[in-house]
């Protein structure tokens, strides 16, 4: 737990508007990104993100300062997404979300590759998808994911392993494979951030 988190929370509890803005700014990208990945709907993700922050500020007094703040926040986001998905399953299915942006120059089949990864992600179980997004897209370490989901680290590793295998299987079936003896020119030499290694 950083002293920064604790002092920020204390200021928020005192009603400091600047601290509230700081806390929202610190986590809104991750919360929104997770919501988009889990809900597959951008408008729903915006609504849920707002709900998540409302709940965060309502429950901020109950945050344990001896624990890190980020997993606590992401845990609330995951729970809200799960609840939202449960409610949405009783409503008509929204328009499928395939919005994606390319972070770098696109190769010839990059758009197709991204679509395949998106579709494979959408087919995963919610737990697998959550772990995959938190680890590979948001770069969170196993321990933080375990804290956010309230599961042991071993369970998180198992879920991630299975999620990867399912995605790889789909990519293989769809022909999205690189020959083993021909290293892909776009693939990096394993830089941590690019290959999805957690940032912290």
């Amino acid at each position, binding site marked *: 737990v950083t002293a920064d988190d604790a002092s920020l929370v204390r200021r928020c509890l005192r*009603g400091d*508007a600047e601290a*509230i*803005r700081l806390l*929202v*700014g610190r986590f*809104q*990208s991750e919360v*929104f*990104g997770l919501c*988009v990945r889990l809900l597959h709907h*951008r408008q729903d*993700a*915006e609504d849920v*993100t*707002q709900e998540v*922050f*409302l709940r965060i*500020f309502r429950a901020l007094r109950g945050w344990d300062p001896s624990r890190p703040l980020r997993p606590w926040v992401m845990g609330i986001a995951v729970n809200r997404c799960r609840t939202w998905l449960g409610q949405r399953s009783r409503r008509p299915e929204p328009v499928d979300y395939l*919005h*994606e*942006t*390319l*972070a*770098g120059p*696109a190769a010839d089949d*990059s758009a197709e*590759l*991204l679509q*395949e*990864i998106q579709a494979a992600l959408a087919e995963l179980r919610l737990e697998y998808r959550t772990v995959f997004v938190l680890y*590979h*897209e*948001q770069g969170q370490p196993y321990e933080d994911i375990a804290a956010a989901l309230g599961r042991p680290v071993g369970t998180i590793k198992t879920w991630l*392993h299975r999620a*990867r*295998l399912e*995605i*790889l*299987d789909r*990519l*293989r079936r769809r022909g*999205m*494979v*690189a020959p*083993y*003896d021909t*290293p*892909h020119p*776009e*693939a*990096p*030499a*394993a*830089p*941590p951030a*690019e*290959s*999805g*290694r957690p940032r912290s």
Partner: protein
Amino acid sequence: MNCRSFNVYLQKRLDGGPRELPAGAAEHLRDCTACAGLHGAAERLVEGLRLLAPPGPPSDLGDRIVSLVSRKRRPRLSLRARRRRRTVIPLAVAACLLLAIGIRLQWPSRPVEPRPQVQAPGDLARNDQPPSAASGLRESVVEAREAVVALTSRTADEAVGRTRGWLPRVSGPVAPKAEDLLGAPARTLRGTAAGVTSGLAPVTDSARRAVGLFLRDLPPMGFDDEHRGL
């Protein structure tokens, strides 16, 4: 290398491990098409993850959240104000209760109003002003009821007292025979009926007057005077 050890390498690779194949992996991939397919897919996945940018929030989402949170948050009182509120409110409630009890105890009790006398029928006939207030109606009904009860009981006592003398007195241990009584009637049946009627006349008159008084106090309901007077 076998499939199991290659799978371990694959997971390390997806964890951000080195891209170089370990010793013996190339030979295994040539022989195992399943692992070769997984390896090719893993390389594409790594590439796709690099290209996959996390979806960014709308530019105004942060402002919307802050305004929403600020709107929903209730202004919190300071610690001192909260303590003061915790103390002052119970004290104020207790003071109000004591004040109310004191006022109730010290307040002079309302003097008992003398019950109005039942007016004679002649007075009632002269008094044509009906009670205007609705609250007076209830009092009038109660008074009329009490008047009916009092008059009925008094007149009944008087009537019973008069007729009591008509009954033959029984003296002696042996009751008189029925033939003796029937053979020498004290009065004729017609005379007895007239006596009973005259004896009960005060009762019926009183009841009639009471009902008239009761109906007189009722607010007008569209009946004419004949109906009101029965």
